């Protein structure tokens, strides 16, 4: 496989190299270079080392695999494609993503999946294998966010204020969520058989990639969160 050595490269130089490559490639010694593959499509990139902020921003297709951790704003406003992170992921992952998938084996920072959308055949999916920080799925307008909390089930799967302003989409949390406080405008309920079928299809590729047994993952109770309205502000105003 073609290897790009990132050591000493500015992000602009690194992206220029990536743009020129049409075949699958590996970036080695990545050390904080930002905006990798921003706005690109059709690339198959594996990253060794730590990519910097805004990895795959405006990504429009293709696959990015990070062997270790990723930093903030992964998949910002992503439209299509797949980002796989074997380690943890920083804050604001998948901000306003409209399509494509982000799979994280470890934990996610604050504001993951914030303002995630959906549109026609585009249904973004974010699966977090560990735990998620505060403000998960704030303003979520579409798509599916799954938090599995595989490593520390005794601890809360999500931080404070999840789903604030949520007005579309769905969230699956692998927990009974008794210790999680949700806002008033959403409904959190135990997953039922139909939900689990949907969840199974969401997890198939994820489990395959990370060598997990879907049955094991699905054997714990899940909580499903959905918004009560797609028009949360309708009653708030009076014409003047």
């Amino acid at each position, binding site marked *: 496989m073609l290897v790009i050595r990132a050591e000493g490269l500015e*992000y*602009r130089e690194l*992206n220029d190299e990536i743009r020129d490559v049409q075949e699958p490639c590996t970036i080695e010694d990545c050390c904080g270079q*930002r*905006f990798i593959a*921003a*706005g*690109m*499509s059709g690339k198959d990139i594996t990253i060794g080392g730590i990519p910097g*902020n*805004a990895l795959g*921003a*405006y990504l*429009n297709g293709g696959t990015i695999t990070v062997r270790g951790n990723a930093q*903030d*704003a992964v998949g*910002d*406003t992503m*439209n299509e494609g797949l980002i796989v992170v074997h380690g943890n992921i920083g*804050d*604001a992952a998948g*901000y*306003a993503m*409209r399509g494509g998938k982000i799979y994280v084996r470890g934990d996610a920072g604050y*504001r993951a999946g*914030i*303002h995630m*959308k*959906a*549109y026609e055949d*585009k249904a973004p999916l974010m699966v977090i294998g560990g735990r998620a920080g505060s403000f998960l799925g*704030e*303003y979520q*307008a*579409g798509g599916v966010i799954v938090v599995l909390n595989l490593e520390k089930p005794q601890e809360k799967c999500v931080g404070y204020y999840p789903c604030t*302003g949520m*007005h*579309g989409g769905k969230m699956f949390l692998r927990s009974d969520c008794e210790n999680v406080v949700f806002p008033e405008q959403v409904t959190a309920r135990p997953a039922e058989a139909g939900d689990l079928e949907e969840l199974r299809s969401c997890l198939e590729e994820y489990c395959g990639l990370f060598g997990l047994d879907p049955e094991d993952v699905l054997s714990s109770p899940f909580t499903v969160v959905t918004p009560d309205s*797609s*028009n*949360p*502000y*309708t*009653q*708030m*105003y*009076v*014409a*003047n």
Partner: protein
Amino acid sequence: MGVNFIYPDFEVIRNDARCTSCRICERQCANEVHAFEPELRIMTADESKCVNCQRCVAFCPTRALKIVKSDCVLRENANWQNDTIREIWKQAGSGGVLLSSMGNPKPLPVYWDRILINASQVTNPPIDPLREPMETRVSLGKKPAGIERDAEGKLICELPPQIRLSMPVMFSAMSYGSISYNAHASLAKAANELGILYNTGEGGLHEDFYAYGSNTIVQVASGRFGVHAEYLEAGAAIEVKMGQGAKPGIGGHLPGNKIVGDVSRTRMIPEGSDAISPAPHHDIYSIEDLRQLVFSLKEATGYRKPVIVKVAAVHNIAAIASGIARSGADMIVIDGFRGGTGAAPTRIRDNVGIPVELALAAVDQRLRDEGIRNSVSLVAGGSIRSAADVIKAIALGADACYIATAALLAMGCHLCRTCQTGKCNWGIATQRPDLVARLDPEEGSRRLVNLMTAWRHEIMELMGGMGINSIEALKGNRLMLRGVGLSDAELRILGIAHAGE
């Protein structure tokens, strides 16, 4: 339900001697004010629905109609004025946040009207633009800090990406959704014909308008609606909307009932779902974070397009602009507190932000003091109403101006300030197909081209009068301005002397 305290604002005066009951007024009014009474064969009116948009007045073939402000008012009270009391009643009746449209109508100072322009007399003679060349073209973007030469001593002429305008005016951001397809078509066509730019606003770009890409600024706001790689590539520049003069510090909510058909497709969100633009960009908490967004946009578009950052004029604007200039942005838009909006909470619109004149002068001065004025172009918006305002803005330090309300007026807007209802009788702030069809894009663009052509002539005349023959020579030339009736503090901030000095 108790009695409604609110007496209608307007009266529909129909001259019966002229009215022929042709019912045109009835067909023209989407608010359903006019009706035909078949038994008596007369027209009736329900003035409680009237917004004073003057559509019926304009279309009445016998000029039988006029709309007047009702003189049925409460007892005079300088503290508790009629509007204040009615607002209390509206809120007491509904529990709602007051929502208004278009710019701040309050009688706050308009500094443009207290600034006067110089003219040459005797020495340094004026220039007649009809017989001498006069340059109104401008180029917006980062300018080099100095002259650079290569190893052989030749000038390095490569500039960062620029946008070039035939005159220093652009059409400001108005989203498809807040205004109609035909309004966008009018703006795009006119910008193309004039050699200037229009702005998509935050609602994405309709597929039909990609053809006008070189005359388009595409906007990226906190909701990121319709933002994808192709969209970013489509325009001549990318504008990051951090704030808007009409509603600094808050986001926007386009209600689900306006997210229909093409608006949903262009925003790339489902029909009927509220389009919520959060107050902040949730990845921006600092200048460094802003820099990240600016450069992610530059990376995604190969550094071929200038990135603009638009902010509302607020108290600390000079320091904010300095930060933006250092974030790598190519241009800064300062939007004053009189700027228009499709809908904003009344209290925010009327009480938050500062006048663009003061903000612009403060920013230009600050960037000069810090030696970074060349690193950004400044665009002033938030109620530029005439060629004279443009001249004054440029002399205060702007590289160009944004207009939106003036452009809407050119297309037929009558400033009735009820855009939020979605029932614009002039086919501008509506998505109802029968209403949208009332605005002919050919006619709309022709009127916009007329307006801008006229302004361009006026700009040339005003410059000629000062003995100045290019916008470049007027830029930041505050000696050309004098204040009237302004305090020392106002003059100091504007950086101008008082008339007579």
